[in-house]
């Protein structure tokens, strides 16, 4: 195959933040037990205003950011979403709305379309309304999501569905994919839930077993074949949970490398979970993004490989996976600079094996998991 792509030359200095994730709010009508929002989200009260967000978008675009995700929480909770989309589009961003679909209706789909929104990604919990209800803490959400997925398709958007997989829905994968096919999806992300935030709290009750995972991969492959035979172009992306891999993923393509998150209160982060790390992150209310990205201690902390410890430090693969995820290293070992324990070369890899065993012994139902809501969050708020 010929290569039509341009490969950027890597030099010492960091490139531009091509990706901006704008977490507009932590407010959300759902209470997913796999939510990756911070446990103490309820402590964040002062959301950026419309003007402050427009300023963030303008600065990021001038720095070279081009892909923009609006997420949260539930971004539709913000009444100014249409205004922000219009402004983002005017600036030249490709605008993605990452939503649960709660708060969406046909009028709003059209208003967003008129504002220039490029893409709406809806998340589904399961094919079975009961499981979906237990996991998201809402009985009405499932029907709403399906209706809105259809409306989004009808409005002419490319349809990417996102299904967060865990042990309570992964066995339904066959009917989940059938449902996505039926909805007319162009692509489906079958993402095993990342164990951060609330998902980490519920880890033992969410992590699927090895057998479940293998069955799910086989189902996905069977569907790929079936879709190809029908000439149906629906791409299936299956994301294996880290806990069953023997090498970590290159988290965010590297710390402060292409990805920048702005949290609801203006905190600027290298990824949406980094807030949990024992360090201070600069705020867009106080510093220009340019200075934060290139010069702040936080963004330079884990750039390059000087910060690495053994076994990463002398490992040939260190530029491929950047030693894995700093949040995972911190959550599991207490040291954010440790090798991600997912790696089987890590001296802490036994922690991952223990987590798999713990999950295998956990017989809680989906209903017994801790729901992500403001009341539970108060427990984690230090203020």
């Amino acid at each position, binding site marked *: 195959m010929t290569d039509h792509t341009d490969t950027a030359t890597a030099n010492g200095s960091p490139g531009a933040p091509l990706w901006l994730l704008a977490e507009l709010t932590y407010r959300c009508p759902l209470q997913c037990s796999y939510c990756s929002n911070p446990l103490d989200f309820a402590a964040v009260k002062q959301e950026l205003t419309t003007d402050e967000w427009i300023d963030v978008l303008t600065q990021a675009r001038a720095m*070279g950011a081009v892909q923009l995700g609006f997420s949260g929480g539930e971004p539709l909770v913000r009444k100014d979403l249409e205004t922000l989309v219009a402004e983002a589009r005017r600036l030249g961003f*490709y605008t*993605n709305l990452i939503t649960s679909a709660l708060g969406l209706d046909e009028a709003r789909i059209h208003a967003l379309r008129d504002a220039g929104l*490029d*893409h709406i990604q809806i998340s589904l919990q399961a094919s079975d309304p009961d499981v979906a209800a237990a996991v998201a803490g809402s009985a009405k959400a499932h029907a709403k999501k399906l209706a809105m997925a259809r409306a989004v398709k009808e409005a*002419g958007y*490319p349809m*990417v569905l996102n299904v967060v997989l865990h042990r309570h829905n992964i066995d339904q994968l066959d009917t989940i994919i059938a449902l996505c096919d039926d909805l007319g999806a162009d*692509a489906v992300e079958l993402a095993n839930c990342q164990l951060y935030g609330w998902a980490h709290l519920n880890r033992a009750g969410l992590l699927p077993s090895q057998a479940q995972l293998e069955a799910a991969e086989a189902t996905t492959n069977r569907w790929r074949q079936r879709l190809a035979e029908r000439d149906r*172009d629906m791409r299936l992306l299956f994301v294996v949970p880290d806990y069953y891999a023997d090498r970590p993923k290159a988290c965010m393509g590297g710390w402060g490398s292409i990805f920048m998150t702005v949290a609801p209160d203006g905190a600027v982060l290298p990824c949406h979970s980094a807030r949990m790390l024992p360090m201070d992150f600069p705020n867009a209310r106080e510093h220009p993004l340019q200075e934060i990205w290139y010069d702040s201690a936080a963004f330079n902390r884990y750039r390059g490989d000087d910060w690495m410890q053994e076994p990463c430090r002398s490992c040939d693969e260190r530029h491929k996976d950047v030693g894995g995820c700093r949040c995972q290293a911190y959550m599991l070992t207490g040291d954010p600079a440790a090798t991600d324990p997912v790696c089987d070369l890590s001296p802490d890899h036994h922690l991952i094996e223990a987590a798999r065993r713990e999950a295998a012994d956990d017989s809680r139902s989906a209903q017994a998991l801790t729901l992500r809501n403001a009341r539970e969050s108060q427990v984690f708020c230090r203020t």
Partner: protein
Amino acid sequence: MNQTGIDTLVYRLRPGWRLQWEEAQQRHVLLYPEGMVKLNDSAGAILGQLDGQRDVATLIERLQAQFPEAPDGAIAEDVHAFLVDAQQQGWIQHD
């Protein structure tokens, strides 16, 4: 590949995808849901000609006028190879 066949086709970008010149990167990029392809100059020039009206033959003529110093047949060959590939990758479609 039957090249007279391909010359009558009218290609367009996949719905919802966007071609854009990025000043900061000094190149064309192809933007799609949560992703981006960084294009080299010739890929950018070819995709820039797709407007959902022109067939491939017209597109080649226009590129030839734009790059008169290119050797005979070279542009047609590049365009054919590129379009077949781009379609396989799901970047473009025809009716």
